[in-house]
């Protein structure tokens, strides 16, 4: 609970920096309405999500009501309005993956990470979501872990992947001390 509060406060403190950084990204970009989606994609590329301050800056830049920016941000799957976790897990729910047990894989991730699709773990290590189809149907069921496509990702493999992350984290902590 306390860690969540600290994270919230960190976000609030960062607001003026977000404004500045956004202005930097917008400099040199055309302020046509048609650029809205590429602009939001760039902003999410930098921040990992679409901060409120950034969206307001974009609205000002394009001279459109901020609700229009929010409409686009909430319409598309790609955009997220909350900060991501350190590692992203995307479970493919395409047809081929589904018949090879995609929903079982998703349930396995949910069980281990204790979060549902669209959520981030309380320690901000992982965020989980589904993706419609990655296009690797021959390797079903597929999970994309930090942009790496993991084929044949059944529950046993899920445990294997999480174990390797845990070992990696422990190694990093040892090296710090």
């Amino acid at each position: 609970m306390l860690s969540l509060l600290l994270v919230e406060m960190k976000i609030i403190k960062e607001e003026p920096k977000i404004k500045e950084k956004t202005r930097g990204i917008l400099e040199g970009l055309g302020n046509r309405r048609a650029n809205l989606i590429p602009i939001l994609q760039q902003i999410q590329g930098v921040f990992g999500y679409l901060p409120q301050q950034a969206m307001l800056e974009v609205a000002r830049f394009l001279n459109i009501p901020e609700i229009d920016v929010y409409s686009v941000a909430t319409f598309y799957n790609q955009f997220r309005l909350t900060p991501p976790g350190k590692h992203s897990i995307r479970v493919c729910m395409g047809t081929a993956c589904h018949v090879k047990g995609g929903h079982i894989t998703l349930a396995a991730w949910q069980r281990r990470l204790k979060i549902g699709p669209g959520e981030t773990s309380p320690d901000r290590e992982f965020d989980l979501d589904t993706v419609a189809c990655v296009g690797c149907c021959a390797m079903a069921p597929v999970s994309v872990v930090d942009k790496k496509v993991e084929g044949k990702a059944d529950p046993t493999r899920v445990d294997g992947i999480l174990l390797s992350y845990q070992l990696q984290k422990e190694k990093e902590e040892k090296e710090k001390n």
Partner: protein
Amino acid sequence: MKFEEIRKLAQSRWQEIWNDQMPVILVGTATCGRAAGALEVLQAIKDTVKKQSLSCLIYEVGCMGHCYAEPLVILRKPGYPSICYGHVNPVLVENLINNFLLNDDPCLEFVLGAIEENDFIPSFSDFPRSKYEKRILLKNCGQINPEEIEHYIANGGYESLAKTLRMKPEEIVSEVKGSKLRGLGGAGFPAGEKWDLCRHSEGKPKYLICNGDEGDPGAFMDRAILESDPHSVIEGMVIAGYAIGARHGYIYVRAEYPLAVQRVQNAIHQAEEYKFLEENILGSNFSFDIKLFQGSGAFVCGEATALIASIEGKPGIPRHRPPRVAVQGLFGKPTILNNAKTLAYVPHIIKNGADWFLQMGTERSKGTAVFALAGKVVNTGLVEVPMGTTLRQLIFDVGGGLSKGKRFKAVQIGGPSGGCLPESALDIPIDFDSLQESGAMMGSGGMVVLDEDDCMVEVARYFLDFTQKESCGKCTLCRLGTKQMLDILEDITKGRGKMEDLETLQELAEDIKQGSLCGLGRTAPNPVLTTLRYFREEYEVHIKEARCPALMCQTLIAYYIIPEKCARGCDACVGTCTVEAISTDKKRRIKVIDQEKCVKCNTCLAACPPQYDAVIKLSPPDKVPPSKNTSIPSPLMGEGEGGGEK
């Protein structure tokens, strides 16, 4: 430089690779290959070559079509045919290089097939599937490096563009119209007619958009072409732009395809360098540029007006038509929107002529179709067959039949807008119209084969779930109707369905199909309508008996370990159970599943050694015999930790 000079230079460079002066190694690094570990194989190749100080050429290629055998590597040793190896891993590839390239043993046990026909190794043309396949769109995939424009040019690329610029735009439109090319994005509208309408519509500038959104889950044809041969699409776009008089082009690629985005962007830059794009293309009066637009994740953006709305910076919400997009499209100007495959066909039609195209296919659907074969079939991957090939030939001869010796149940064609066809439909020739008559749809080419272990009600529910999440929400019938249908299907798959639900489902499906605003809504009920039409008994069993005959609907099944088959000493299931729901029965020393804890993840069934095969699924769950369970904590849970289950 004039085109002839460019071509000669590219061809001579291509000859230098293949003149058998030194070995050549090709690695398939499209997304499928990467998922299977192709990048690690590539690294191993580079390391081995360095270690052995071997002089050879290595380059990455795209999808070869045999996705079931990824990672794929082709080795070409001077004096031998090019040999393709499948299921390659870093250790194997090192051995292959040492044994074959440095010595003379081609390691036949790992060979998938030779590329060229020869006397001692079976080539791909000996495979049963090559009797049916005709790779036109996929010709270059797996042969050339998609990041080298010169490879494309050496193999005939951009020749059609040079030819086009010597012809009049009306002649190009006429040729495409004459070929009867129909859009390969799903609707199958005659491309030439659309172009003609756009050509004659007023408004400047005109736009040409390539639809690479490919939102169908289970479809990866457009991705493969964009990753493996992006220039074929670019060339098609320039020709189309010339024909309709467009000044600007867009390639719309979904952001979920990062490799395709990168390859297309790279291809656009190279085409600009070679003056195939931008001002005064190849010295002519025609100027045309292409911008890449990344879709931000919405299946509905595959719909033309929604796609256009997203390029305009708005939510991807379709609008009513008329006015037609060819008359009033992007920014209100005449616009042509074609699927990537349709555009990739254009250079071939210009090169070989409309008559060549008319020779292939059926009466009403000419040319070939590209399918992404997936699901329970042996040879999953990309195949290209002439229109008119039957489903049976495609699934059994090209696809190699059902995997694991299972029985064929249905084939799902056309993604969430398509339908499921049963065994009785297997002799239907693949063709836009015949598929539509049967209740399915060609769609953009996704084809998923289903076997006896797939529940058709669950498949319908799955597709409705997808369409429901992807509906834009504008029109009442789709937004609310698909939700109602989904809720009914969820109830049926959970054993809460009623017989009158089937009537409601049918009526609702028909009304949504007829009354929705856009193509998404009008085709969303297709999976429901086809499964109700061909698999009604399955629905009824779910409702009347709360039983799932395919043993797939999780609420209606239970996992059970057969006591007689369970090997006492084995702990395979206990160790792998993801929720520690399996314990050992004290008296009988067999393993027992705690039904309260079981999450039906299937891991125990997969883990149980094949000689025992003790784990089975039962439906309905009350079929599980009551156990006189006197369990003790399994050794893995540690001594003295108390009762094994709670």
